[in-house]
């Protein structure tokens, strides 16, 4: 069984690192790099949302953390001259810490209440970045440099993106690598005791506390991991677009992150990844039909929900689901 999983992973790695770039080169559709980079980064943020689902909370606030992470990175780069690669973990940690303070009170809420408060949180973050002087209001922070190189002990780990022949490939590699790390972490969490405890929390919080689980701690911990993912995704987006505005991540994005999870399936670790891919590509492909894009897209969503209410991956559900 373990060997089988390893084989799948190896296959996946070869596919995303070698086959996809090759296919893109053959087809000459270099714009796919950008699309796939976006999918990879959005799926990191969605992975965070999925994790909060795993403790039984509907999180429509990931946009807030993506925005916060993006601004942290942008401010550190533009005003303090930090290297992007250093700001990336800082942005994640900032969001994780922020989410502890936000999470402590609001994670006591359940169901729709939590969902709505997180929805409002996205709006609060947007309005805050509009109001604060350091974020420069609606103008945003623009013309950021491309990520510079990263050396540790003279060892060149990452080349300077501005020297790259095609930075798009660089960004693609970066996004894919981050995504793989994020999902590896997620997979480990879900399949370790931490995940079992999260599931116990999802199913019955009172019972969980009666078997000695510190539910508050676990909720806040999970939420901060989730927000860490959001911050990383936001900061990476800033690097690619070289700019950030209060409108870079809004309520619609938060809702999309949630939809990605639903679509892929809440019971499956790789659900959000598949969901993001499908939603993003679906939307892009439908662009060709012009003004009917939205109509077809939303109809598909509704039909999918009617026939696969537990996500696309439930198609592959064997009878004996854990």
């Amino acid at each position, binding site marked *: 069984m373990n060997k089988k999983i390893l084989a799948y992973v190896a296959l996946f790695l070869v596919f995303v690192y070698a086959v996809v770039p090759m296919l893109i080169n053959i087809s000459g559709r270099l714009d796919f790099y950008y699309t796939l980079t976006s999918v990879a980064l959005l799926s990191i943020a969605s992975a965070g949302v999925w994790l909060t689902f795993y403790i039984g909370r509907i999180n429509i606030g990931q946009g807030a953390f993506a925005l916060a992470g993006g601004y942290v990175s942008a401010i550190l780069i533009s005003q303090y001259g930090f290297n992007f690669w250093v700001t990336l973990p800082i942005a994640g940690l900032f969001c994780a810490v922020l989410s502890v303070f936000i999470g402590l009170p609001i994670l006591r809420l359940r169901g729709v209440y939590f969902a709505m408060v997180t929805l409002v949180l996205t709006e609060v973050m947007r309005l805050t970045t509009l109001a604060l002087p350091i974020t420069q209001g609606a103008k945003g922070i623009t013309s950021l440099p491309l990520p510079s190189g990263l050396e540790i002990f003279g060892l060149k780990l990452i080349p300077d993106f501005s020297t790259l022949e095609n930075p798009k490939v660089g960004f693609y590699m970066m996004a894919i690598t981050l995504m793989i790390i994020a999902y590896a972490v997620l997979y480990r969490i879900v399949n370790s005791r931490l995940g079992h405890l999260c599931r116990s929390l999802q199913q019955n919080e009172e019972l969980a506390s009666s078997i000695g689980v510190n539910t508050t701690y676990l909720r806040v911990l999970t939420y901060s991991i989730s927000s860490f993912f959001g911050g990383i995704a936001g900061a990476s987006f800033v690097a690619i677009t070289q700019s950030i505005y209060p409108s870079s991540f809004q309520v619609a994005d938060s809702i999309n992150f949630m939809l990605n999870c639903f679509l892929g399936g809440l019971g499956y670790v790789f659900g959000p990844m598949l969901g993001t891919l499908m939603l993003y590509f679906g939307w892009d492909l439908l662009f060709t039909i012009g003004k009917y894009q939205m109509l077809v897209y939303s109809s598909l969503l509704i039909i999918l929900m*009617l026939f696969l209410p537990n996500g696309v991956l439930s198609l592959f559900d064997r009878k004996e689901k854990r």
Partner: protein
Amino acid sequence: MEQIIVNGLYLGAQYALIALGLTLIFSLMNVMNFAHGQMYVMGGFITYTVVSQFNIPFFIALIISGMALAVIGALIEKFLFRPVIKKSKRDESTMLLAAGIGFFLDSVILLAFGEKQRGVPKIIDGVFNWDFRIIMPYDRIVIGCIAIAMIIAFMLLMHYSKAGRAMRALAQDKVAATLMGVNVDRYQMIGFALGAMLAGVVGGLLVTITGINLGMGGPTSTKAFIMIMIGGAGVIPGAIVGGFILGMMESVGLSVLSQYGDITYLLIFASLMIFLAIRPHGLMGKPWG
């Protein structure tokens, strides 16, 4: 000061009416209707179309848009929400469905009515002016009064009609209501239709004053969510209280803090989060299990 209060009451009456529909749907089916704002926008556009294209009097148009939305709501409940609720493992699936329906209605509105801001002519001209302390156009007063009258009618309906009593029983305890012989499917459909109808009527009311455009759906839904969280989700008086509170806060905020731009909403949202942290089920909500 008086002006701020009157503005707040006027806004609050409309808000409360939107929130009523949302909370009714939530209390009956445990569904957060993300498409509520779109239903409201749709009501506005239907009223506009009926008035301006067919030259039908505004009040009849209002009734038509209410009826149209009721039918749409009933169909959405019967053919979309009901099967999904029955099949899905988790109740959250209905959120995706609701969001999908929201997008769908948005696109229908776009195709049918276009992107332009639309409005209908004022129903009454003139401005009420009391010593320059309260200045209020007559049409706003009429619309505010209609909204309040509808809230009262809705409350009466819920308390004294058979359907109203059945829906209240259903909201309180689904199992007990079923045992008492309440037809769950039927009243959920009626409730959804009623909620959608309210959204449609408010949309129609506002089209005479602020007009209506495609982008108003999402923000309206968000505001409606806020109102029912203030009052307590699924509690009908809570929705009314929440609506008036939000109306007041906006009215005060917009007049006191107008020079700071959107800071009013930032303050409203932030204080809502603090409020919910202290009172997790709003002013009148019942705690969950």
